[in-house]
C-alpha cells in the first residue's frame, strides 16, 4: 500500500497542531517518524486513520483520494494503528482484549471462541510471548499489555501498521523480538510507520525517516544518508552536544537503605543509596522493579524487611508517611498515577506540599504561586501560565510537572520509575540535567529504567532485578549492555 498525505492542517480549538505536514509511505518500507513531544506525530496518524477529521489537506491511498471516517474503516482498508496510549480493557481477559470489535463469528452471529484462541496463540508464538490467554489484562505489566496490543495488530493482516512508540514499555528482549517481526512483515510487503524517541532503534530498523517540528514536516531522508546529530538538530532546531550530561557529583553518606525487603512480587531485596548518588535499576519487563518501589513507598504491603532513612529505621505504611519522610515517587504511568489531568500545573505541583502553604489553615495563594512559578522556571516547563490544564501539555512537559511536584517537597530521596518514558530527546536531556542538579544538592536518586543507554549513561551504580530478586550490582565503570542483560535474564 502506498500512502501520501499533502498539506494537512488540523487544529484542536484554538490550538493549531498540524500546519501543513506532508508525508509519504511506500510499500514495504519501515518509515520512522520523529519529532519533539507535541510535534503532532500521533495527531497526524490519527487524522490518517479517521479518528480525527482533518481541517484541510489531501490524503491519497494507492493513488486514489481517500478519507476514512473512523478507525474501523481504516482497519478494513488495511491500515492498523497501535496507539501510543494503550487501549486495554483491564477487566477483560487477554484473549477478549485482542478481539474486541472484530470477533470471528459462527452460526447465528455467535462468537467463535475456539477460532479466537487459535488465532491468538499463533500471534503469541510469532512474538514469543507466553501469556495465559485467560489472564486479566489489567494484571499484566505495561510491557505485557504492549505485547498484547502488538499481537492484536498483527491479527488484522494489515498492509500498513502504524506503531506509535511501541517499545516505550518494552525491554531489550521483547524489542529484539519485535524487530524480527517487523523485518518479516517488511518481507511480506507490509509498510510500517515507526514513531519513537529512541535513536538507536530508528537507525537499526528503519529505511527512511521523516522529522517533524511544530506541526510541519522538516525533512524526509533515507536512513543511510543521515545521522544521529542531523536528526536531533532538525528535531529540536538547535545543536545538542551530548545525550547524557556529565555527572560530577560526589556521593556522600548513605541516605537510604532497605534490608531484606520481601513483598508479593519480590524477595529479600537489599540495597542502599548515598546522598548525591544515582542508582539505576534495570531488569526485564515484569521483573518486579515497579513493585519494589511501590513497596518502599508504602503503596503495597510489605511482608518483611526494613527501610532505613539516614540510618534510622522507619515504617512506611502509606504514601503520606513516605512524603513526610521526604521521599518522592515519580511513577511509571504519569497519566494514571502521577497527575490530576484536570488540574492546573499549579495545583498539581502544590498537591504534596499543600499544608506548607497553609500555616494558618487557609492557603496563602501568593506564596503558592511564587513557589510554583519558581519551579516552572527552573524546570523550564513550556507553558503560558501556571494555570494551564496539565492534560493539555505535551508528554515531556507533563513529566517535568511530575518532577516539579516532588522537588517541591524538598526530598531527601527520589524514586524515578521510567522517568523519560515517551519523552523526546530534548526534554530527556533536560530531565537528566535536573537529576544532576538534584544530586549535586545531595538528593539520593533511585532510577528504574528499561532503556539501557539511559541506565548506563546516568547511573553511578546499577542494580539488576531478576524475578523479584536483586541478581547483581554493577559499578558504572564496568557495566555494559551485555553484562546487564546476562544478569537480567538469570545468567551469572
Amino acid at each position, binding site marked *: 500500500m502506498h500512502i501520501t498525505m499533502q498539506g494537512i492542517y488540523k487544529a484542536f480549538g484554538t490550538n493549531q497542531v498540524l500546519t501543513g505536514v506532508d508525508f509519504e509511505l511506500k510499500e514495504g518500507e519501515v518509515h520512522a517518524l520523529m519529532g519533539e513531544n507535541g510535534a503532532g506525530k500521533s495527531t497526524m496518524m490519527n487524522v490518517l486513520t479517521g479518528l480525527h477529521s482533518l481541517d484541510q489537506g489531501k490524503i491519497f491511498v494507492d493513488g486514489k483520494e481517500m478519507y476514512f471516517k*473512523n*478507525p474501523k474503516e481504516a482497519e478494513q482498508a488495511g491500515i492498523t494503528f497501535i496507539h501510543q496510549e494503550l*487501549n486495554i480493557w*483491564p477487566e477483560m481477559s487477554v484473549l477478549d482484549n485482542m478481539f474486541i*470489535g472484530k470477533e470471528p463469528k459462527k452460526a447465528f*452471529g455467535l462468537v467463535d471462541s475456539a477460532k479466537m484462541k487459535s488465532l491468538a496463540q499463533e500471534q503469541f508464538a510469532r512474538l514469543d510471548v507466553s501469556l495465559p490467554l485467560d489472564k486479566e489484562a489489567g494484571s499484566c505489566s505495561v510491557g505485557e499489555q504492549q505485547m498484547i496490543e502488538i499481537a492484536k495488530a498483527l491479527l488484522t493482516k494489515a498492509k500498513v501498521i502504524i506503531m506509535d512508540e511501541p517499545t516505550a514499555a518494552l525491554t531489550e528482549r521483547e524489542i529484539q523480538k519485535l524487530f524480527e517481526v517487523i523485518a518479516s512483515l517488511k518481507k511480506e510487503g507490509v509498510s510500517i510507520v515507526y514513531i519513537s524517541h529512541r535513536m538507536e532503534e530508528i537507525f537499526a530498523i528503519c529505511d527512511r525517516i521523516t522529522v517533524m517540528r511544530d506541526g510541519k514536516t522538516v525533512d524526509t531522508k533515507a536512513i543511510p544518508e543521515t545521522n544521529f546529530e542531523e536528526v536531533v538538530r532538525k528535531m529540536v532546531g538547535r545543536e545538542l552536544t551530548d545525550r547524557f550530561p556529565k555527572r560530577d557529583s560526589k556521593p556522600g553518606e548513605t541516605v537510604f537503605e532497605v534490608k531484606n525487603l520481601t513483598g508479593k512480587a519480590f524477595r529479600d531485596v537489599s540495597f542502599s543509596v548515598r546522598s548525591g548518588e544515582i542508582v539505576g535499576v534495570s531488569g526485564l519487563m515484569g521483573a518486579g522493579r515497579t513493585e519494589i518501589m511501590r513497596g518502599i513507598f508504602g*503503596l*503495597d504491603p510489605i511482608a518483611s524487611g526494613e527501610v532505613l532513612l539516614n540510618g534510622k529505621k522507619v515504617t512506611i505504611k502509606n504514601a503520606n508517611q513516605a512524603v513526610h519522610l521526604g521521599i518522592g515517587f515519580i511513577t511509571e504511568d504519569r497519566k494514571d498515577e502521577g497527575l490530576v489531568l484536570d488540574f492546573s500545573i499549579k495545583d498539581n505541583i502544590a498537591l504534596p506540599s499543600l499544608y506548607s502553604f497553609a500555616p494558618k489553615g487557609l492557603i496563602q495563594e501568593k506564596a503558592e504561586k511564587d513557589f510554583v512559578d519558581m519551579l516552572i522556571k527552573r524546570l523550564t516547563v513550556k507553558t503560558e501560565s501556571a494555570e494551564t490544564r496539565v492534560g493539555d501539555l505535551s508528554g515531556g512537559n507533563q513529566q517535568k510537572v511530575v518532577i516539579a511536584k516532588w522537588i517541591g517537597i524538598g526530598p531527601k530521596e527520589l524514586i524515578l520509575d521510567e522517568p523519560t518514558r515517551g519523552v523526546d530527546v530534548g526534554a530527556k536531556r533536560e530531565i537528566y540535567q535536573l537529576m544532576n542538579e538534584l544530586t549535586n544538592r545531595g538528593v539520593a536518586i533511585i532510577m528504574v529504567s528499561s532503556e539501557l543507554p539511559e541506565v548506563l549513561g546516568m547511573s553511578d551504580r546499577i542494580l539488576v532485578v531478576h524475578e523479584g530478586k536483586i541478581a547483581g550490582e554493577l559499578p558504572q565503570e564496568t557495566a555494559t549492555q551485555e553484562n546487564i542483560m546476562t544478569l537480567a535474564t538469570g545468567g551469572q
Partner: protein
Amino acid sequence: MKANSEVLQTSKGNLLQSVTQKLGPFLGLLILVVFVSVMNPSFLEPLNILNLLRQVSINALIAFGMTFVILTGGIDLSVGAILALSSALTAGMIVSGFDPMLAILIGCLLGAIFGAVNGLLITKGKMAPFIATLATMTLFRGLTLVYTEGNPITGLGDNILFQLFGRGYFLGIPVPAVTMIVTFIVLYVLLHKTPFGRQTYAIGGNEKAALISGIKVPRVKVLIYSLSGFLAALSGAILTSRLNSAQPTAGASYELDAIAAVVLGGTSLSGGKGRIFGTMIGVLIIGVLNNGLNLLGVSSFYQQVVKGIVIIIAVLLDRKKSA
C-alpha cells in the same frame, strides 16, 4: 480515573478471590435460604417457591436490563417510571378496544422508545446517565399522572391470554416466571456469546478504547437503554395483568431494587465487570429476603433494617472493590 486504593495494591490470593467472586453471591443466597427455611419450613413448600418465582420475575426483568446498562458504566433510574407509563398506555389501549396481546406488544415497544430517549440524551446529549435518567424519571412519572389523571386504569376485560400473562401457569410454572427464564436465556446468550455482548463489556471497561476499536459506542448504548426500557415495559405488562389494572404510581423505587440486585450479583457499578447470572442470584436474594421476612412475621419497620444490613454484609462479603 476513579479508582480505589486497592487498585494500587495487587490482589492477594488471586485464585481464592476468583472463586469467592464467582460463588460469593450464590453462597449468600444459600445461607439466606437455609436460614429462612429453618425458621419457617413452610418457606420450602412448592406453592411458596412458585409464588416466590412469580414475585421476583418483575424485579428480575428490570434487573436484567439494568445489568447491561451498568456493564456499560451507566445507570437507569427511569425504569420504574417507564414501567408505570407504558403500563398505563397499554391499559389505555386495552380499554379502548385493542387486542390485549397486541397492546402489550405496542406497550413494550413504547418502553423501548422511552429507553431510547435516555440513550440519546446520554450519547447525543452527552448527559451523565444518572442525571439524564433522573430527569426522564420525573418526566415519565409526570406523563403517567397526566395520562391517568392520578387514577388507576381498570376494566381490562377478561381476555384469557392477557390474564394468563401475569397470573397463569404454564406446565405448572407461573407464566411470569417462564417469561423471566426465557428472557434470561436469551439475554445470557446475547451478553456472553455475541459481539454485542462483548461490546457492552468493552464500553464499560474502557470507553475510549472501545471507540478507537471501531465499536459504534453511541449505537450500542442507545440499544442498551432501549432494551432496559423494553424490559421495564414487559414487567409492567406482567404487573398490569397481575393487578388487572394499571396503577399510576406503579414501579416506585423499583430502580433501586433492580440496582441492588445487580450489585448483589457481583456486577461492578463502574462498568465492564459482571455477569447476568449473578444478577439472577441477586434478584433471588432480594426476593427471598422480602418473602422470608414476611413469612417470619418480621415487622415492616425491622424489615427495612434487616434489608439494609443484609445488603451491606452481602456486598462486603463479595468484597466489591469498584468505586
